[in-house]
């Protein structure tokens, strides 16, 4: 009898403790969920935008299908994966029976996952290398399908007070490279880049991504022509760290996606192939006049003349639709022009 009483007392205490520590019933949403709902109000998917024509307004709207179920696994490079994650949030809302797993990984993991059949979508911020394409073709007998999903630009950032008006690719090579394959001279202080007065003697500090990042590889190919970066390059973990590193250092220069621009930095116009200077505006990026323009890609394993099918195809169709490209734009990336989006849709239909 005494034992029973003791057990009852213990149960009562446990119940009270659990009751006190349980999340409140009212509201029923955690802080993180509230943040999501806030974000959702910031990023509405407006089918029609009455405030002026935007490039994606000319794209066809997405048509919902019924009874879509299944799972999508996306493994790929972080910049494009972040975009995929934003699209996935909306896609999941439209198709609650589709499970989507989005994982960002180092640059080399995505192509390997596509080759092994572990991933349905492989987001990349640069095209696959010939080695990756060869391995895939050797295994499946056809190359992986490349879909361009957004445009992006590698911006050159300097501190907001830096008066530099523009730089050529040769000057960037002189600043960032220790090999100077473009044939220019080494540039280590700002007077060598044309600045005068109090800026002349300032040493240039370099900020950028690490060698595993797609932006690092693209910059190395397009600007350094495959040459080596200076050892003084301060490698930061992410684009916002690069932008802030530049913001906090008046003598600094750095490269990162245009996505990370902020008030305390200035984006430097770069001389295009026609010799004129171009800022990385949407128009200049789409027209490729800005020389450090790039696309963001998703690779899929689609046999030729066979539909990709399933939720992965619907996901890509949504991404290439008006609504999908609006999410791209709202998230800070540059949406595709109509022709490129149409080309992607045709590739999926082929």
């Amino acid at each position, binding site marked *: 009898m005494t034992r029973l009483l003791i057990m009852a007392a213990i149960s009562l205490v446990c119940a009270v403790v659990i009751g006190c520590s349980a999340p409140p019933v009212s509201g029923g949403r955690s802080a*993180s969920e509230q*943040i999501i709902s806030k974000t959702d109000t910031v*990023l509405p998917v407006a089918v029609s935008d009455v405030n002026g024509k935007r490039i994606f307004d000319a794209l066809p709207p997405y048509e919902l299908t019924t009874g879509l179920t299944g799972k999508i696994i996306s493994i790929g490079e972080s910049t494009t994966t972040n975009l995929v994650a934003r699209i996935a949030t909306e896609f999941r809302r439209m198709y609650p029976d589709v499970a989507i797993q989005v994982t*960002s990984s180092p640059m080399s993991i995505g192509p390997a996952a596509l080759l092994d059949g572990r991933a349905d979508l492989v987001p990349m911020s640069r095209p696959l290398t010939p080695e990756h394409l060869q391995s895939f073709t050797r295994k499946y007998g056809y190359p992986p399908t490349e879909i361009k999903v957004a445009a992006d630009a590698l911006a050159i950032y300097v501190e*907001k007070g830096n008066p530099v008006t523009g730089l050529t690719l040769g000057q960037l090579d002189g600043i960032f490279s220790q090999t100077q394959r473009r044939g220019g001279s080494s540039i280590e202080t700002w007077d060598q880049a044309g600045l005068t007065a109090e800026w002349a003697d300032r040493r240039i500090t370099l900020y950028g991504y690490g060698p595993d990042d797609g932006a690092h590889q693209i910059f190395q190919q397009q600007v350094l022509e495959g040459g080596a970066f200076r050892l003084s390059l301060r490698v930061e*973990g*992410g684009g*916002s760290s690069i932008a802030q590193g530049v913001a906090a250092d008046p003598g600094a220069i750095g490269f990162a996606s245009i996505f990370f621009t902020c008030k305390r930095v200035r984006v430097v116009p770069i001389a295009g192939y026609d010799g004129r200077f171009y800022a990385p505006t949407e128009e200049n990026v789409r027209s490729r006049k800005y020389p450090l323009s790039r696309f963001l890609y998703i690779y899929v394993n689609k046999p030729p003349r066979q539909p990709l099918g399933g939720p992965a195809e619907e996901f890509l169709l949504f991404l290439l639709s008006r609504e999908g490209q609006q999410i791209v734009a709202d998230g800070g990336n540059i949406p595709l022009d109509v022709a490129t989006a149409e080309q992607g849709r045709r590739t999926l239909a082929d």
Partner: protein
Amino acid sequence: MGKVKKLKTAITIEMTQAVRLYLRTCQVSLVLGICIALFVCGGCATPTKNPAKEEPRQISETDSNQPIRPAELDELTRAFADRYVGLLYSACDALKKDNPDPVQRREAQVLMVDCATNIYDIASNADAFTRMLDLVVVTTLVSQVWIDDDRVSEVFAGREELLIQALHHGRVEAWALAAQVLRPDQIDLLDYLLWDWRRHNPDMSRVSFVRFSNFAIGRGKSANAEVLAAGGFYANVGRQGQAIDEARLLAERMFYMLKREPTLLRWQVDTLKEDICNALDDRIKQADATVTNMRAVVSEANGLVTSIGPTSKSLNEMLKTADDLVARYDTWNRWSIAQGSRPFDIREYTEAVKELSVVAEKMNDVLKSSNELLGSSEWDRRIQQVSQSADERMKIAAEQSQRVVHDAFWRVYVAIGILFAMFILFMVAVFLIIRQLRIVTVNAGDAARKEVSK
């Protein structure tokens, strides 16, 4: 024979009870011993001690291929928290020093207190991994608000350099800490999440309360889970609670926070003082503005009165002339003067206006004197009095809160002492009972033996 059996049974029962009593005493003493040991261990443990008896390693010495140990991360995060607060304190102190602008002084103070409170709150978190992520979140968001969004130039124009360096340095160090635990792609993801959150919350300037758990995004699982489950360098840290004594960790966290509480309290008191002074400054400014307005009104009134003077004089003369004319006309035509009605006399109004002018001048003097009072050292003295009294009250509050903590600890120690004394008494009593029982048993045995021999 039956008596012997009964006696044997009685002895056996007595012995069994004595043994049970002894065993229970042992159990109780064991439990008490564990409690005391735990308390003593917890009390003696300091944040600087390595809990797992591992040699502490420097950040630079950490081999990037080796997973970081929970004890190391525990230590590194707390050390970083202290360094960050110290860094911020130096920068904010320099911003406040000899700064005549009360807004700048207040902003620097609030930034310091906000950050320090939240950083220490994070540092006393149970899980080292969550602690590390939260530290990265807070240092990054604070630096984004002040540096990237250039709030530093808006608030501390001309003095921003020191704060920029401090915040940027703190952020770099936090990410260096994260780089020991997370893979590069996870770092990139975290960086993006923070940036994206800031993009969607651009007006939020007080960000030090934001935690990593706020960043769960629609990825099929939370970002936190993704980072934790991705099998990074720190895959085993989430299960640290299974391996490490939780009671000691709790005590350590408690002591960590308690040791820093007086500093935080002092800073909060400073903030309050700053607020009171600023409120008084505002009041003085408002009073000054009111006085200035009043003086302007009064001087306008003076001007009006002065201008009315000559005008009324000429008008008076004109009316006088008219009056004379009327008087002459009156003498010529007496029958037309109405009885009982007094003619309009502008002199009366002139007198009134003159009186008004005197009143206005007096009022002006009163306002002047109040203005002088506000600008005088007397007012300064009063502000100082208010400040001192607030200071004293805060001091008393701080002392009282410290006393509460001391009292609580004192009571716990007394309770343990009493328990220990009771335990000793209990052991002595048991010992005596057992000895008594033995004597009884021996006597009973002797008696039984005697009876048997009889």
